[in-house]
């Protein structure tokens, strides 16, 4: 690194604006206020500007560039909120046509230029990454020289340094040392740290506030690393899990180590009769039983014991009972189960009776479970019903043959074989909702519909997020840094004996009003005059 020598004898790096030792401004011709940012030190971005890496470094170390990147990100984020993002569309919407249908031509353009997916797009990621790089480089570029400059500052400063501080004043007094001594005592009372040299004083406090920006930038960098960590396999899990009442299911993502059983699901709404008078008006406006009150899945969590053997039922031990509500997820190990969706009153079983068409005599009822139907239903005394075929979601396929669309029991249909002492060979009947077809002609017996059993289901989100602790640390460090930088102030007061006059200059990184109030108290019982705010002098 190239250096040059100040008149005080100190060797400064090229690019230094204010001598690191005596504080002499290198541009002697200027008379305006000294720009005190980074103490006028030489930064890498100023010193080295030759190689490609230097140029990249220069680019990202510029606050101006950082501001431009932030503004572009801000505008991009704003554009991304004009219409809903693709992954937040209502579940019933068709994403292919949604934007045009819903918002016309603008929607189509929005979709076309990719704003429908702003926050997952490569260019948005690039912007956030640039902010990250800028955070690192800006901080590194400034923190080292600033630390050095503040650490080795001298007490006696060059007159040019003092006169060009924002707060500066001179006073002619008779007993200089006595007055400085008084001011010193007051400064100590105000918790300034005092350094003395040849009767000159440097009083300083709150220097740690200067590190605030760097601390909060470190917090942000950690936070961004935490966000990136999510893309490492195994760190993050986001799965949906549907469980019906009475059902026991392995929890996805746990390698079948954990099972969950839904004992009961409730959905409650606000009802005019049961709620107090307070909510009456609101319930009236939104409609009775229209405002949801509670979604709750009462579950039991099980842990598997021993190894998983194919074909064998796993051995389960109960871990705990828990009521999962919105805002009250079930947590175990690194996992959390959230209540996010539900289905009320899904068909779970159909009830039938075996009826003698002539006499009307009924046998049964028998219950056909729609998830796992039994094949044979023995009604004793030679009466028996066999389930020959089952179509959970019945329709006629393109060949005109009964078939099932899905595995969900939306429209169940059954082929029964009924055997009785009177019909030992058995009679076949096709039974669907409001249909009863007898392929062999006339049967003596029929299956009569005797009722439905329904069950509720809960839609849970299974979440694992091993990045949260890092995000928490990043967020905490950011808050510490931002409070450190914003709620404390770095204040310095120089009082020097200059040829029979007291020269006083003061600096703060923010809140000059507060500094002035403090100086009033510090200099109150001395003969030293308050330094003048040279900035407001100029503007008036």
């Amino acid at each position, binding site marked *: 690194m190239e250096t040059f020598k100040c008149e005080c004898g100190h060797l400064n790096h090229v690019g230094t604006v204010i001598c690191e030792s005596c504080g002499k401004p290198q541009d002697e011709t200027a008379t305006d206020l000294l720009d005190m940012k980074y103490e006028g030190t030489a930064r890498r971005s100023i010193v080295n500007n030759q190689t490609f890496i230097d140029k990249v470094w220069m680019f990202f170390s510029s*606050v101006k560039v950082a501001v431009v990147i*932030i503004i572009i990100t801000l505008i991009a984020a704003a554009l991304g*909120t004009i219409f809903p993002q693709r992954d937040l569309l209502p579940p019933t919407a068709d994403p292919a046509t949604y934007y045009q249908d819903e918002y016309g031509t603008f929607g189509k353009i929005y979709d076309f230029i990719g704003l429908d997916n702003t926050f997952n797009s490569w260019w948005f990621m690039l912007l956030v990454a640039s902010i990250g790089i800028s955070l690192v480089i800006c901080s590194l570029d400034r923190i080292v020289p600033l630390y050095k400059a503040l650490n080795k500052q001298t007490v006696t400063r060059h007159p040019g340094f003092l006169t060009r501080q924002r707060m500066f004043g001179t006073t002619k007094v008779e007993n200089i040392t006595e007055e400085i001594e008084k001011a010193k005592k007051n400064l100590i009372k105000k918790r300034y740290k005092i350094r003395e040299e040849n009767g000159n004083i440097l009083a300083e406090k709150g220097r740690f506030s200067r590190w605030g920006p760097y601390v909060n930038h470190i917090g942000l960098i950690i936070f961004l690393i935490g966000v990136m960590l999510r893309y490492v396999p195994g760190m993050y899990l986001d799965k949906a899990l549907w469980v019906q009442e009475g059902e026991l299911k392995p929890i996805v993502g746990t390698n079948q180590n954990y099972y969950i059983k839904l004992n009961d699901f409730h959905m409650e709404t606000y009802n005019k009769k049961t709620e107090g008078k307070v909510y009456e008006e609101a319930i009236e406006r939104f409609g009775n039983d229209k405002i949801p009150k509670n979604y709750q899945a009462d579950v039991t969590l099980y842990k598997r014991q021993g190894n998983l053997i194919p074909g064998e039922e796993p051995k389960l031990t109960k871990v705990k009972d828990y009521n999962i*509500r919105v*805002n009250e997820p079930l947590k175990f190990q690194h996992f959390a189960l959230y209540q996010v969706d539900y289905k009320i009153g899904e068909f779970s079983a159909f009830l039938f009776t075996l009826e003698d068409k002539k006499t009307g005599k009924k046998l049964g009822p028998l219950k056909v479970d729609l998830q796992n139907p039994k094949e044979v239903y023995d009604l004793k005394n030679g009466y028996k019903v066999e389930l020959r075929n089952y179509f959970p979601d019945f329709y006629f396929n393109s060949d005109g043959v009964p078939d099932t669309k899905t595995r969900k029991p939306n429209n169940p249909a059954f082929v029964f074989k009924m055997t009785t002492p009177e019909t030992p060979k058995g009679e076949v009947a096709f039974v669907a909702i409001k249909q009863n077809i007898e392929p062999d002609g006339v049967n003596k017996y029929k299956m009569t519909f005797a009722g439905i059993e329904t069950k509720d289901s809960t839609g849970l989100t299974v979440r694992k997020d091993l990045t949260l602790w890092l995000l928490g640390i990043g967020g905490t460090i950011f808050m510490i840094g931002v409070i450190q930088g914003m709620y404390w102030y770095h204040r310095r007061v120089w009082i020097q004996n200059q040829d029979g006059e007291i020269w006083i200059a003061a600096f703060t990184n*923010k809140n000059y009003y507060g500094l002035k109030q403090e100086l009033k108290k510090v200099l109150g019982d001395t003969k030293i005059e308050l330094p003048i705010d040279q900035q407001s002098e100029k503007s008036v």
Partner: protein
Amino acid sequence: MYELSSNFLFISFICYIVATFFFGGSMKVNDQGPNRWATIGISITILGFLSQITYFITRWIAAGHAPVSNLFEFITFFGMMLILAFILIHFIYRLNIIGLFALPIAIIIIAYATVFPHEIKPLVPSLKSYWLHIHVTTAALGEAILAISFITGLIYLIKNINQSKSTKKTFWLEAVLYFLITVVAFILISTAFNASGYEAKYNWVNKDGVKEEMIYNLPSIVGPHKGELTTEGKFEALAEMPALINAKKLNTVIWSIFAGIALYLVIRLIIRKRIGAFLQPFVQKVDSDLLDEIGYRAVAIGFPVFTLGGLIFAMIWAQIAWTRFWSWDPKEDWALITWLFYAVFLHLRFKRNWQGEKSAWLAVIGFAIIMFNLIAVNLIIAGLHSYA
């Protein structure tokens, strides 16, 4: 309890209005430092604030949850936090002119809140969490402190923009003032038509071809798609909107713009100069640097509070209620935009040429972003936050 709490809100509203006049009076004496007018003004403000606190507590008791769960409650709370921020700033700087501007803006905000339904709404499951209290109150406090920078910025601009000739700057300053007047006009017409019980029903066809009913509370300038007025003797719409556009909201916007223009023109006719020029002499004695500094200080104090309430607490709650800490929900996005914007503000302050007037403009834009997030996102852009 509910009625009692509403009465306390009304009392505080009156207090703020009365206090404004005292701060106006204090300007005649001196702009900074205690004088009798300012002392009475701040006392009445504190009285109003205490009354509003009582409103808040009694409504909390009545509802069983903190009254920050819908637009009416949130906006009144924001107004209350603005008053709190003003009181704090007043005791630090004793700059009376801030009262003259901060109080009317708080009054407008609280009056605006009353346009929304007031009744106590029971909490939906996703809001049932103590984080509702923590997140919403901290975010509102942060935004209110940031809003102080808007108030000092506005005063700075009124004082320092050269009004001797018409320039871009005078135009934009008038635009800001016109916007404030439009909000007042909107409040006045909606309150007036509400009080008169105006209601015009339309049968219309939505974009899916389904017939629906739409109730207008303002006379319809624009009607809904294939709208048929079913209430007799009401004003028939002049134009019909396509099904994609929410005609009722557009109608309200058109009314507000026109009423705003009308009110603005009336004021201009009376004062016979730009409003900025009219206000300028009142703020002439204020120290510009001090205004700039208070504005910066407000951002410096408000920024961490807003980060904590609007982003960090928000993320913690989102992780609990929505299963993930960030969903790119519009309200979240705008909180992030607000945060990024004030981050830009703080970075630009390093440069000396961005202090003063430029800073003041930034503070105005920042407040516009906050207001957009507070109001427009809920009303225009639906999302996970659309509870109200």
